């Protein structure tokens, strides 16, 4: 995964509450067996007529936001379905960072796993950033210093330290977890004693994918 340290770009406003992942990527795009190629699926129903003809007017289709790399969204962004396709489609479009006053739990984790930075800010700061985004402002999000920069102004944000560390380093989470094999094996031993009726690992279980 590519590290996220600092990113500057156009911020697009999406001033709606409770934008769900069904809106971000509708059902018909969930039949793919690939992670890539979902750019066209992003907010598809808002951007296309039922017959597939593009509809003008959605924020990400208008200059300057058609080149946006930051999304400033209303409260509780990404709620609903666990579909990681939502994070994949945003990343495919070029979005590197989502800013909202609340980001739904599963979408938040999916974002991190794709190097997409989720930033939560208080409602009053969100309203201010939304106003800037509506003017087509360029923002910088500095994860190292935990600030959002616009011109001379810097707005601090709070982020979970593990999320920050992982995104800054761009680590492979599975590789990291596998490095903790001794700790995982210890839990397996503990659970084998507590719940002996469940299938517990025989030596060298594990099948290649």
């Amino acid at each position, binding site marked *: 995964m590519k590290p996220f340290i600092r990113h500057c770009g156009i911020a697009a406003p999406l*001033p*709606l*509450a*409770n934008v*769900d992942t*069904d*809106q971000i990527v*509708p*059902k*018909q795009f*969930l*039949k793919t*067996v*690939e*992670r890539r190629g979902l750019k066209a699926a992003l907010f598809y*129903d808002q951007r296309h007529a*039922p017959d597939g003809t593009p509809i003008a007017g959605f924020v990400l289709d208008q200059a300057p936001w058609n080149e946006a790399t930051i999304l400033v969204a*209303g*409260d*509780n962004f990404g*709620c*609903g*379905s*666990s*579909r*990681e396709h939502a*994070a994949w489609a945003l990343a495919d479009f070029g979005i590197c960072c989502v800013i909202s006053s*609340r980001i*739904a*739990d*599963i979408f938040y*984790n*999916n974002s991190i*796993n794709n190097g997409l930075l989720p930033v939560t800010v208080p409602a009053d700061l969100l309203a201010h950033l939304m106003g800037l985004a509506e003017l087509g402002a360029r923002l910088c999000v500095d994860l190292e210093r935990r600030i959002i920069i616009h011109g001379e102004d810097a707005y601090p944000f709070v982020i*979970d*330290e*593990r999320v920050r*560390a992982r995104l800054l380093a761009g680590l492979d*989470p*599975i590789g990291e*977890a*596998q490095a*903790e094999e001794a700790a*995982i094996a*210890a*839990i*397996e031993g*503990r*659970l084998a004693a*507590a*719940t*002996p*009726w*469940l*299938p517990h690992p025989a030596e060298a*279980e*594990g*099948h*290649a*994918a």
Partner: protein
Amino acid sequence: MSNARTLYDKIWETHATALGDSGDSLLYIDLHLLHEISSPQAFAGLREAGRSVRRPARTLAVFDHNIPTADQSLGLVGVQDEEARVQLQTLERNAAETGIEAFRMGDPRNGIVHVVGPEQGRTQPGMTIVCGDSHTSTHGAFGALAHGIGTSDVEHVLATQTLRTRKSRNMRVRFEGALPPYVGAKDMALAMIAAIGTGGGTGAVIEYVGEAVSSLSMEGRMTLCNMTIEAGARAGLVAPDEKTFAYLAGRPSAPHGADWEAALAYWRTLSSDADARFDEEVVIDVSGLAPQVSWGTSPEDVVAIEATIPDPGSIDDPDRRTSKSQALDYMALKPGEPIAGTPIDRVFIGSCTNSRIEDLRAAAEVVRGRSVAAGVRALVVPGSGLVRAQAEAEGLDSIFAAAGLEWREPGCSMCLGMNPDRLMPGERCASTSNRNFEGRQGRGGRTHLMSPAMAAAAAVTGRITDVRKLMS
């Protein structure tokens, strides 16, 4: 400081590694459920990295999201939608190659993943359970810590049997009082979401307590925990009790013989200590609760059946006001109008929320001896092949058929419209599913969430109807 712990604390402590420097842990996963939509990229990722599935015996695959609800006995070759067929075949192949048990389409044990896990006795108290599906919260009804994950985390769990995660806050929702007739778990869930909002549980695990929760059947508790994700919480929990144990006894993957006694002894330790501290507490009195119906495009947009549609103009927050006004436009409804009497075109009885035997019995009781209203098309989709067989043994299929409802084969079906069952633009549906998002059941479709009894009442009257009046 008190050492009292919540049920969530206890499950966490048994399954998590020590906190790392940055405050997170690896959570060991006891049961990993797979389906066709969220798993193909995870297996591809494993393959690319040359990684194995760590615990195939703790993993179970089902086919549910995009399968047709007719002619399943034809097998995957009978699936007309080519993309869906490829995705189903991909899961079949991935499971076979990695030694994971899979219930194929048409196998009576197959069905909606959150119906199958409990039905097979795979879901057990005290477990940690994940699945690439947000409604994994359903399994919390058994006192298991269960939640949805994305595909990258599916890959993580396949490879390591763990999830990197941070502990959530403890929240408790107490449902006080006794439920009135024709008011049940679905109404409790909708009323709670209306009260706290779809983001109200963000960052928390909710434990459900109170007289009304204890009195629910396991099916009802599953409905309640299922909808927990619609409040934004990571998971819902109900402490296991005698009903939980009675439900599990004799199920194929439940412990047997001496193991059963050992399991019972362990499961009886799984409850919150009396003086355990919760970060948040919500109390809801259900003794006067009426059947609940959604009016908008978020599961928090809910009113009682005798209420009128609220006016978004009275909302202070501008983003919320815009969202709710757009929702009313989409739903073609006006503020101040009564929700009861709204004409409907379609009825869907099914989904991981309400497709279990008790749900089907509740719907059958209402439609028995009545007929589906003219112009209305109604589908009943059981949650699994075994639920379907049980319903047929009880004669429920004949009651539905006599009333003019279509009796289908199991799957997720019209809850998310990935298979051929979906709404046409502008159609209005009384649905027992969990999400009324724009386009969820088909582009331009309008969804009203409600209980199985209420959906059945809508089917026979052609309108959103108070089932209590219909049955009085």
